[in-house]
Each structure stands twice: as C-alpha cells, then as structure tokens.
C-alpha cells in the first residue's frame, strides 16, 4: 500500500509573533499577549518570554515574577483570524485537502500533490517561505505518513523547524518517546497509563489490547494503535466535516457579577449570539445548556434542558436558559457564562400558524438582515442598549475555523 504524506503545520507562538511583527519595537523582546476583556491571564507569549519561564495560562503577575521585563500586549483577535485565514489559503495552493485543527495548526494531505511539487520537503519549504514573506512569522512543520505522527514531528523542532518521520523510522522514534507527546493523551490519560506502568509509546504499542480495552473501553484499541504510530484518520477538508453538533457562546465577564438583572442581561446577549449564528447557518435545536463558572475560577456547573420543539429564536433560547438558572441557587458571583444550543437539525422553514408568532419571526428576520448588513448588534434588544457592559467573544475558541458555522466573529 502506498503511504500517505501528511504535513502538520504549527505557527510558532502565533499571537505573540503577529504582535511582534506589527510592532517592530516588540521584536526580540519578551512579550505576553492577554485578552482584551480586562482579565489578566496570559494567552500566549513570545519565545523570549518562554525562555524566562512565562507560560500560557499564567496570571500577568506570575509572568512578571518570572520575567520582570515582560511586556504585556492586549491581543487583537481579528488580526489573528485574518492571518490564519490567509495562511490557510496559502496551504490550499498546494492541496485541496487542508484541515484547520485550530487557529494556528493545520494538516495537509499532499499525497496527490507530489507529482506536481516533487518531494514533500519542497512543499514545506515553499510554505515556510511564503508565510515568512507575507507575514514575517515562522512555523514548524512535521512530515509523516499520518496525522498523529505529523503532529508529533512538528512538535519536535520549535521554532521554525522541519522534521520528517519516514515510515521506516516510526518504531525507532516512538520506542522511547513519552506517551504525553502524543496528540490525544492528556494529563489524566497519562496518569492512568502510568499506573499501568506504561510510560513510553513503545510500551503502549506492545501492551496487550485486552488489558487496555478492559481499562479504557472502546478506545483501548485506538490507544494501542497510537503507541504503534498507526492513525488512519483522513484529513477532512472544509465542507466535508461532520455536521456541527452544537452552537454555543461563552464569555468571561469583565468583572465578577452577582446582580440578577445584570446576569439576565448577559444571558440575553449570549442567547442572542447563539440564536443569530444558528439562524445564519439554518439550524435549530432542542437542547439548551447553561454553563456557569464562579468567581473562585475552580467551581462551576453546567445544566441542560431539552424542549419539545426545535428553536433558534434568541428570546426562546434566553427563556430556556433562564429557566435553568432559576433552578440553581448561586453560591458565588459569576465569572463566566456560557449558553449552548444542541440536539440540532437543519431548520425546515415553517411559517407559524398564529399571528403573534408570525410577527415575532418577521421581526427577528428583519433584525438579522440589518445586523448582517451593518454588523452584529446594530439592532438588538432594548435591555442590551449601548452604555451597558457587553459580553462578547474576546477569546478565540479552540473550535474556531476559517470557514463555515465555526467561523465565530471575535473582538
């Protein structure tokens, strides 16, 4: 069987590199990018800052303790989404089979492009050169026979690396590689495997499949294959993904809130964001999930309700979310709120029977048209009028994609 040739491309310290490129005074200096929402968690940092111990997820004061000369930059998400979209367009010049894994990582299946471009290494160097020329930033590229190994390879040399894992070298490379290096094995899974005396990919690959299946169920087999470097999953290009299973928005609030009226207002805004995105992509759902994280950061809860009918109107989503909130006594002020609509189906347009409902539908459609033309929230509910604090996507969600329903508009 002919081997596939997969590239995994990982932009190096993406947000920080973009900011350093946009502001020449930041180049070569330790910088940390933080969100624009008034909270002070480091989203990413430059390699100069990482060398001093600054890590993603640290509070700004922790970062400053590691590196007193750390420069804090408020991130501009639209700069990053634009750059990511353009970089993915560059990838499509080499193969249509491009899967965006997140805002700064993509897989490319170049198996069928090799007859045009020669070896995969050529494609990798061309992509690196074009990204550097267009945006002044670097990336690490892994080339391997599957997605799992290509990702592993791209992580092996950072920044600006190019690593090739030849099919004949897979077993040798994996033999002593720690299991935590594999994409899909998180800290929890690593702990479980360590308790079974499995520390390296070689040990995982040799482990009895029955033993893994008894412990982990159906993913036992998958784990064994991962240890052997086997991954048959295809590169799924835009338009061929499975249907989305949910539409959701969450927002960390600028400050912790406990005023019920304020909580309701943010809930309405999130419901409107969910509703308008669901309507734009023609889906409606039956299940509404509400997620709340408290001020202490560590305690949270999520509850859901399933309705009889499919809905996508903002006020109906809001009412359902509010009914969930009413069942809970809040223990602390709220730090983060999230609303998700799931159990989706493609919406069959049906005109409501009753006059009032018809009016509501027409009013919503008119609002959507105005907002599509003039920008989100150009027309909105009275209680969300300007002057009041607004929730919003100040963080690019991991599910962000350059196209389609997952292309969430961020501030």
């Amino acid at each position, binding site marked *: 069987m002919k081997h596939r040739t997969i590239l995994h491309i990982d932009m190096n310290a993406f947000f920080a590199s973009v900011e350093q*490129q*946009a502001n020449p005074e930041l180049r070569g200096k330790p910088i940390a990018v933080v969100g624009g929402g008034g909270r002070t968690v480091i989203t990413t940092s430059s390699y100069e800052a990482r060398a001093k111990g600054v890590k993603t997820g640290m509070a700004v004061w922790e970062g400053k303790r590691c590196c007193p000369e750390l420069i804090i930059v408020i991130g501009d998400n*639209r700069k990053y*989404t*634009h750059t990511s979209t353009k970089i993915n367009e560059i990838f499509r010049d080499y193969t249509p089979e491009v899967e965006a894994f997140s805002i700064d990582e993509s897989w490319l299946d170049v198996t069928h492009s090799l007859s045009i471009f020669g070896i995969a290494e050529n494609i990798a160097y061309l992509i690196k050169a074009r990204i550097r020329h267009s945006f002044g930033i670097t990336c690490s590229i892994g080339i391997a026979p599957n997605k799992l190994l290509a990702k592993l390879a791209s992580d092996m040399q950072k920044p600006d690396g190019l690593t090739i894992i030849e099919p004949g070298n897979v077993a040798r490379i994996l033999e002593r590689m720690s299991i935590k290096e594999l994409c899909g094995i998180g800290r929890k899974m690593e702990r479980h495997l360590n308790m079974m005396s499995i520390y390296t990919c070689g040990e995982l690959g040799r482990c009895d499949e029955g033993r893994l299946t008894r412990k982990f169920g159906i993913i036992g087999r998958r784990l064994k294959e991962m240890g052997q470097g086997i991954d048959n999953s295809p590169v799924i290009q835009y338009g061929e993904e499975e249907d989305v299973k949910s539409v959701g928005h969450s927002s960390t609030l600028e400050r912790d809130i406990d005023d019920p009226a304020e909580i309701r207002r943010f809930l309405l805004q999130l419901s409107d964001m969910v509703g308008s995105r669901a309507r734009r992509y023609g889906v409606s759902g039956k299940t509404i999930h509400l997620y709340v994280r408290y001020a202490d950061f560590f305690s949270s809860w999520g509850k859901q309700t399933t309705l009889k009918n499919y809905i996508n109107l903002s006020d109906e989503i809001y009412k359902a979310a509010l009914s969930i909130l009413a069942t809970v006594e809040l223990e602390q002020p709220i730090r983060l709120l999230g609303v998700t609509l799931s159990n989706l189906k493609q919406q069959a347009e049906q005109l409501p029977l009753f006059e009032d409902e018809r009016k509501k539908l027409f009013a919503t459609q008119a609002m959507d048209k105005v907002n599509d033309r*003039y*920008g989100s929230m150009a027309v909105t509910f009275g209680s969300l009028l300007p002057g009041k604090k607004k929730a919003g996507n100040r963080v690019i969600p991991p599910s962000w994609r350059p196209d389609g329903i997952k292309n969430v508009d961020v501030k």
Partner: protein
Amino acid sequence: MESTCIPIRVAVIFSPGGRLTPKWFELGRRKHEVKETTYFWQDRLGEVARMHYAVSDGEALYELVYNTCEQTWALTALKSERP
C-alpha cells in the same frame, strides 16, 4: 496601543490587484510620512470590509483603517511611547 477613531487624510497608492500602500497621512496639521507598513489585516463590520494598516513614521506606530464602502480613512490606534 491607545484606541481612538479620527477621520484623517491619507495618500495611498492603489496598485493592480486591489493592493493599497499608504504613503503619508495628516494628523494634527502635520504630515507623517509612512516609513514602514508593519502589518496588514482585514475584518468586516456587517457587509463592510475594513482594511487595517499598522504603519510607522519612524517615531510612532499608528493603525490606519480604510472603510471600503464609504471609502474613508480613519486613525484608530496610536502608540507613541516606547514600551
């Protein structure tokens, strides 16, 4: 960067392929020559595409925005102090 939104006059070269190159702009009755365009990105406000240019006059960093619908320019951010 300090956020602002001031309509300004900008001299631009429109190249084939829709490429725009800001050459100078006026701010506070002073003409600022664009020495370097350090970054470019685009976003949308509803149907309107907006083109953002991070430019330097050698002394400070500015963000100029071109509204493709109204065909107007604005200065939306300014960083005059060294970090």
